[in-house]
């Protein structure tokens, strides 16, 4: 029986179609995983299913009743429970209260609710910690509590959003076992968002792949793995003949080290997101940092930038330790970050955005003019957009602007976070050429990409991350040649 059937669901934010004509149906008792590269729209889709966002159009039938557009508290009451990627519990209440209070809404009299609370405590293995204040639990226990709260609402359908997020491998195993138990012993239908491919492939009945807001593929794990389109979406193309740029001649062996990270660990709250990350970048290199979404690539850049400070380990830039410095100071060492969402100031014009980095840096007017002119000679088509406000620029224009903005000032080392995301292939090609040009002029580059193709064409060396740690280091050609390895590390 189809317990959930979503038909032609769309969610638009202005002109951006985050979810576009998605049909999605789940059988009762199934464990379905939703995967897809960054920006695929998975979380938005989840939010629409649970009522946190109303869909722009489309139906969502739960047990043959249309729940599209209902407020979240009503969706919950219909029998859909949800857990959260960023742990969402009641911190100052006890574990027991965290579960009892929601239960009281669904089980009367109170004795029934109490019984149910103890049942759930048993299921999530927190029975002996029932009287702990929730804020004092370990990260893994908190994630279990988060799932436990989802169970209180008498759900028939559970939506679990990255339940193992931020957990070390041993704890992940516990959680995976819990999810499997919930499906097989307790009979819940489960929809799962996960980035850890090994988990997804091993426990799912079926997998739905979303890409750029649309459904790309659907099937059993084996079917999805064998699907060329899916691999291409993750890897950014399999056609090795299609060259974006010409590979650099010459060798960079004798260059000095510019950036060195040693055993860096970082946390979001208690979520352990970087595990002993060590990497280095030499002057003049382009180093690619690849991996699936959730692997920790963006966090690594943020750690270097001082935005998500390292809790242990060292980060050296030009032989100076920077891991404890505030972000503005790190930026002024000559490190520039072009963030994933571009983050153009929508309320300023293109020219104003471009010149923002010059503020109070003591750079001469002459030098500024030179840099700005260099930018416009690389991007002549942006000259006529100079006075347009940031929010009127297209995605591609914004990306070029973000890169340009990242070049202004005294920048020696540039980090780019998924610059190709959401861009048309022709623009990606132009972007790759620009990156190569910048590098030829002397800029050292650390390039994070989910689109492996572009990065591997440009890079001198490549690191691959998974689950918060570095799992591969080597030459791009070697990785590319090993099709099985690249699929395993980067694809499905």
């Amino acid at each position, binding site marked *: 029986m189809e317990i959930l059937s979503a038909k032609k669901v769309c969610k638009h934010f202005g002109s951006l179609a985050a979810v576009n004509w998605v049909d999605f149906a789940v059988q009762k008792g199934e464990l379905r995983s939703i995967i897809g590269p960054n920006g695929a729209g998975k979380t938005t889709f989840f939010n629409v299913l649970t009522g946190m966002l109303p869909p722009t159009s489309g139906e969502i039938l739960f047990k043959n009743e249309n729940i599209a557009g209902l407020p979240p508290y009503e969706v919950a009451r219909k029998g859909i429970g949800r857990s959260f990627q960023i742990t969402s519990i009641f911190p100052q209440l006890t574990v027991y209260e965290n579960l009892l209070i929601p239960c009281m809404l669904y089980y009367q009299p109170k004795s029934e609710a109490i019984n149910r609370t103890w049942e759930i405590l048993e299921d999530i293995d927190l029975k002996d910690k029932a009287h702990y204040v929730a804020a004092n639990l370990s990260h893994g226990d908190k994630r279990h509590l988060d799932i436990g709260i989802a169970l209180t609402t008498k759900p028939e359908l559970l939506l679990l959003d990255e339940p193992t997020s931020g957990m070390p491998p041993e704890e992940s195993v516990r959680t995976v076992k819990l999810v499997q138990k919930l499906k097989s012993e307790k009979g819940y239908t489960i929809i799962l968002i996960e980035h850890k491919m090994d988990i997804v492939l091993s426990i799912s009945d079926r997998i739905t792949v979303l890409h750029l807001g649309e459904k790309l593929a659907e099937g059993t794990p084996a079917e999805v793995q064998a699907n060329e389109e899916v691999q291409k979406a993750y890897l950014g193309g399999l056609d090795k003949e299609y060259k974006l740029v010409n590979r650099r001649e010459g060798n960079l062996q004798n260059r000095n080290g510019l950036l060195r990270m040693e055993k860096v660990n970082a946390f979001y709250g208690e979520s352990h997101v970087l595990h002993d990350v060590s990497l280095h970048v030499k002057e003049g290199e382009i180093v690619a940092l690849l991996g699936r979404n959730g692997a920790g690539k963006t966090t690594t850049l943020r750690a270097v930038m001082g935005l998500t400070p390292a809790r242990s380990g060292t980060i050296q830039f030009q032989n100076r330790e920077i891991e404890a410095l505030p972000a503005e100071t790190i930026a002024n060492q000559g490190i520039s970050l072009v963030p994933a969402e571009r983050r153009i100031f929508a309320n300023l014009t293109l020219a104003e955005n471009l010149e923002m980095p010059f503020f109070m840096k003591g750079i001469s007017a002459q030098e500024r003019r030179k840099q700005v002119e260099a930018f416009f000679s690389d991007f002549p088509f942006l000259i006529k957009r100079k006075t347009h406000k940031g929010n009127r620029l297209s995605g591609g224009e914004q990306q070029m602007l973000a890169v340009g903005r990242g070049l202004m*000032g005294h920048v020696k080392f540039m980090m780019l976070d998924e610059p190709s995301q959401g861009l048309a292939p022709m623009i990606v090609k132009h972007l790759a050429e620009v990156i190569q040009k910048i590098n030829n002029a002397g800029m050292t580059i650390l390039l994070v990409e989910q689109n492996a193709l572009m990065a591997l064409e440009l890079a001198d060396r490549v690191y691959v991350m998974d689950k918060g740690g570095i799992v591969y280091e080597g030459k791009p050609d070697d990785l590319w040649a090993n099709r099985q390895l690249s699929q395993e590390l980067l694809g499905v």
Partner: protein
Amino acid sequence: MHLNLSGTVIVTQLLNGFALGMLFTLMAVGLTIILGLMRVINFTHGVLYTLGAYTLITLHKYLGFWPILVIAPICVGLIGMAIEASMIRPIYRRDPLFTLLLTFGMAMVVEDVVRLVWGDIPYPMAAPEILSGIVNLGVCVFSKYRLFVIIFTTILLFLVWLLLEKTALGKTILAGTFDREMVVILGIKIDLLFTLVFGIGAALAAIAGVLSAPIRGVFPPMGTDIIMPSFVVVIIGGMGSFWGAVIGGLLVGIVKSFTVEIYSPMADVIVFILLAVVLLVRPRGISGIEGLLE
């Protein structure tokens, strides 16, 4: 209640409203930028206004009126920056409601310090010689001083607008209200920016205080009198919006003036009724949060 409004009365009240509204706007602009950039509700804005007025009283006999229009904002601006750097900066990372409580407590303390230093009795303040008396505008006669207030504040607000839209500092502030972290990533010391913005807001409040002294007199709780309508202006105009503060201030000032004319007991209450109406019709205010300083 008089509803027979002749042309003369209408114009007079419009102008009065304009003058009053400009004072509200001076306060609201500072409040709204601080709110938009730093997410802080600054209760101390009222006492900064009060300090401006008291600076006038203290230095008036030595320097006259005009120099104080420059000195008061500088002094009070510096005080504002000191307050921000010492007490508010450490609290940013916390709940924004904590900063509200903090600035509320500070406002209480400073108001009493004013009473301590200058006493409880209200000080009357006369307008400077050149500006005393009335001017004939043809359709009505109007207080010279209030006309001056209108012209002066319009020029001042124009300068603030220039600062925001045309200088690098202003653009950085605007960028910061949009995306604080990105400004940090670009290597700009956001903490200093906050302090400076707080100082500018304080300076504007002080000027409002100096200007209002000959109109409303000087007394310790004067800050409270003006901060309430100023908050209302910020909400009506839309939090974080410069033009919202301008339009909101004028709207509130004019409505209030006309209410004084038509049925004066309602004059203070009408501001809140206006707030209720705006909330029902356009909850985000005139320029809304999305229209950050457009």
